[in-house]
């Protein structure tokens, strides 16, 4: 197999397709991070919740130490946290490709989506399941980041707020979240970069992203290597500057801590 300028020039005539693929990829990543963030935030709050239906067992007084240990163990049970944990583990321990197929063929096999195109070339009935699947996946991963960001705020802040009589919710909203957001935002931006790359497997369900158009150009021209190089170039040009910008902003934010 050879790589020639002639071939590159030939595939450049399909530039329009690559351009459309580029738009789909970026749009997909944006939607994913946007919806994934809300899912992740909800999951993080679930993971940090303190819903314990059997907490009264802690207070039960008994001289039998084994019984006390058993009671304390049951008192720790938190169903909300358990559900969130199960979800996160499912996302982390199954392949992304399987998740996308599950969503596309099974979930949206039962739900019929309206068929229409937006921006002139994006097929909603393929784009939407892909965005959902990616958001479900990245939400699971991001929840750990958000939980970490919230837990990273010094415990003394919570103590100070609670000692002033603020409720748990008030403490979270006024004190913890504004500080946690500084830890969280750069990680979420990095997730955007990750999703740009990972969304490339969505071509398997027919979303016309960069990779899908690579396949199209390959089959139209019988040129294998050059479209792939083109895709590599495009992905790199998307991810490299973005991650550099994030790095810069992150550094600036750290400096502003010492104002």
């Amino acid at each position, binding site marked *: 197999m050879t790589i020639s300028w002639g071939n590159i020039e030939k595939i450049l005539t399909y530039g329009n397709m690559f351009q459309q693929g580029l738009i789909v990829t970026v749009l997909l990543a944006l939607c994913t991070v946007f919806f994934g963030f809300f899912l992740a935030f909800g999951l993080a709050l679930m993971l940090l919740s303190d819903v314990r239906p059997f907490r009264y067992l802690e207070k039960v007084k008994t001289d039998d130490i084994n019984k006390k240990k058993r009671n304390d163990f049951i008192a720790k049970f938190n169903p909300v946290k358990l559900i969130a944990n199960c979800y996160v583990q499912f996302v982390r321990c199954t392949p992304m490709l399987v998740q996308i197929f599950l969503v596309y063929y099974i979930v949206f096999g039962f739900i019929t989506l309206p068929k229409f195109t937006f921006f002139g070339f994006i097929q909603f009935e393929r784009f939407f399941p892909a965005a959902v699947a990616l958001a479900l996946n990245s939400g699971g991963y991001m929840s750990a980041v958000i939980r970490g960001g919230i837990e990273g705020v010094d415990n003394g802040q919570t103590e100070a707020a609670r000692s*002033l009589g603020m*409720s748990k919710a008030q403490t979270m909203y006024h004190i913890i979240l504004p500080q946690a957001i500084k830890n969280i935002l750069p990680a979420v931006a990095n997730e955007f970069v990750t999703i740009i790359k990972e969304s490339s497997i969505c071509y398997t369900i027919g979303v016309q992203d960069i990779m899908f158009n690579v396949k199209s150009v390959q089959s139209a021209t019988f040129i294998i290597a050059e479209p792939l190089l083109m895709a590599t170039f495009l992905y790199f040009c998307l991810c490299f500057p973005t991650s550099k910008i994030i790095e810069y902003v992150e550094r600036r934010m750290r400096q502003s801590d010492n104002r």
Partner: protein
Amino acid sequence: MTTDNTALIKVRDLKKHYNYGAIKALDGINIDINKGDVMVVIGPSGSGKSTFLRSLNLLEEPTDGSIVFDGRDIVNEKINLDEFRERMGMVFQHFNLFPHKTILENLTLAPQIVKGKSKEEAEKKALELLDRVGLKDRASAYPVQLSGGQKQRVAIVRALCMDPEVMLFDEPTSALDPEMVGEVLEVMKELAKDGMTMVCVTHEMGFAREVGNRVVFMADGNIIEEGTPEKIFDHPESPRLKDFLGKVLEA
């Protein structure tokens, strides 16, 4: 120990155990805190002083025992804990000011969202109190721009803005540079003079002797000796206290 019925806080048999009794941070504390008391708690590190103080507003949940504050058992009764915490101000060793808010916002946030005061009302009181500790001109600064001593004075004011009935101090000068200890103690002295009920865990023996009207000596999760500063410092009885004072006053 005074046991009149007017005690503001009555602590009975307060216990805090870890690992099912393997570690006893508090091992049955009994004490009454009266209105207007300036109680200073001293003792070697690990004696449970801080745990005791933090139990008083339930930042630390006791294993057993009761704390009766203004006639209600805040450990065992079903109560709105936030309402009680609002009435007990707390000052921490590491200040714990909110770094993302200005000094004025630090002071006015809780009065507004917890007590429902208007912004003007809260700011008026905050500025008045800030003026008293000599920091009125720093109202729009952020906590990082302040020195340790200034931060702690702001932290005291923050607690005072809630009009607490008791002030709890958890080693308020331990994290400060030596030359800044004085300015914080001065504010605390002022408070004591105004008749504020205070419980103060500290290593400042001079402060304990001068300002406290009761000194409590704790060791191994128990109150070993309790009395007036003269009794504790000049006529200690227990060997543990004599040993402790020997080490501390020598330094």
